[in-house]
């Protein structure tokens, strides 16, 4: 909806629309936050995998070194 189209809407209706949109927005934000937290909890459930991943330090370093050298060539 463009700005010009708002001019044809009554103030009362516009207020109603703002209220409804704000409510929808906050509900959507809540849902996003909920999903975000859920995702975090789910990652923590796989903590063992992350601990394993954290142990591949040297392998990571050499893989990175190779990648950087590859980029240089």
């Amino acid at each position, binding site marked *: 909806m463009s700005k010009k189209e708002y001019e044809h809407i009554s103030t009362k209706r516009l207020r109603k629309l703002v209220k409804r949109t704000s409510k929808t927005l906050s509900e959507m934000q809540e849902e996003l936050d909920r999903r975000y937290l859920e995702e975090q*909890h789910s990652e923590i459930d796989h*903590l063992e995998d992350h601990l394993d991943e954290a142990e591949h330090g040297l392998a990571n370093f050499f*893989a990175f070194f190779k990648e950087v050298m590859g980029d240089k060539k």
Partner: protein
Amino acid sequence: MTETSQTDTDNLLSQTATATFLQWLGIAILVYLLISAVGMIGDGFKGATSGQADELFQFATNPFMGLIIGILATAMIQSSSTVTSIIVGLVAGGLPVETAVPMVMGANIGTTITNTIVSLGHVRVDKEFRRAFASATVHDFFNVMAVIIFLPIEILFHPLAKIGGLLAGLFVGGEDMSVKGFNFIKPATAPVIDAFSNISNMIAENVASILLIIFGIIIIFLAITLIGKLLKKLMVGRAKVIMHRAIGKGPITGIFSGAIVTFLVQSSSTTTSLMVPLAGSGVFRLKQIYPFTLGANIGTTITALLAATAISGETAVFALQIALVHLLYNTFAVSLIYGVSVLRNMPVHGALWLAKVATKRKSIALAYILGVFFGIPALFIFITNQF
């Protein structure tokens, strides 16, 4: 449930209980070896220097040199707990506390290399790499900042050493000058220390003290590594509970949970490294990871405190003093830098900037790691030796 399956379940439960018991027994033995090894370093150092430890470490009386020794040693063995435990042993052997304080600060910086290296594993996806690298280097920036603030103050006024000494005096005392409540440690660790002393004497009598120090360092390193591995298995469930509870809460909870998880796994490198993939995937934001990382700095100080309980005699108070300095330094640094909003955001901005630059040119990340942890310290040692 049939009778056979019930028996199978019972057997499985009993096997799990036995395995858990054995793992805890293993940890108890390793802790015993750890504190014995700290005692070995103390005794070996005393013997090697014949009470002239301050002369031997004359080169490290320059606090910047001490700092660099701490950085290099920790970066090389990737364990600040090992280095701080060794420092506790050296202080027990006569190394002056003032000389040891910058080394402890250096160990804090050196330990950050581990999670930075872990972040390199995300090199293939730029966005992922940027997030992972920033989450790792925020710890570097924080620890460097802490040194920039606290080292000059310590050089000038020695507040950490003074408060540490004061507190250590409260815990250490009595006729035998051993840690109150831990007087049994010395006789308990004596068999291991004596055994390794004898072995050292058998190998080479003239360098027996040096060998004792080397044995001590090896045992500390192995014990801390194995304790970490066992605790990871045993404590992962509890760590999960703590982290689940911290999600969605504020930064203070983040700091506490970081400290507790680190205490449980006895390794700040593990705690900070495990956050890197979580940041890389974008599930956790840098602002959530940052306080958790700071908690790791505090949680890791427990190992040195444990190591200090191994020492008795007249140097026990100094051993505990340096362990308390480690705790105080990290607690003060977190309180000050995270407590003051202007300072709080500096490591975040620094890490985000570096990650952005390093994502564009990966060689910068490599240069950063080699430069900060090895190049600059080595260059400083070279320059100091020249003048």
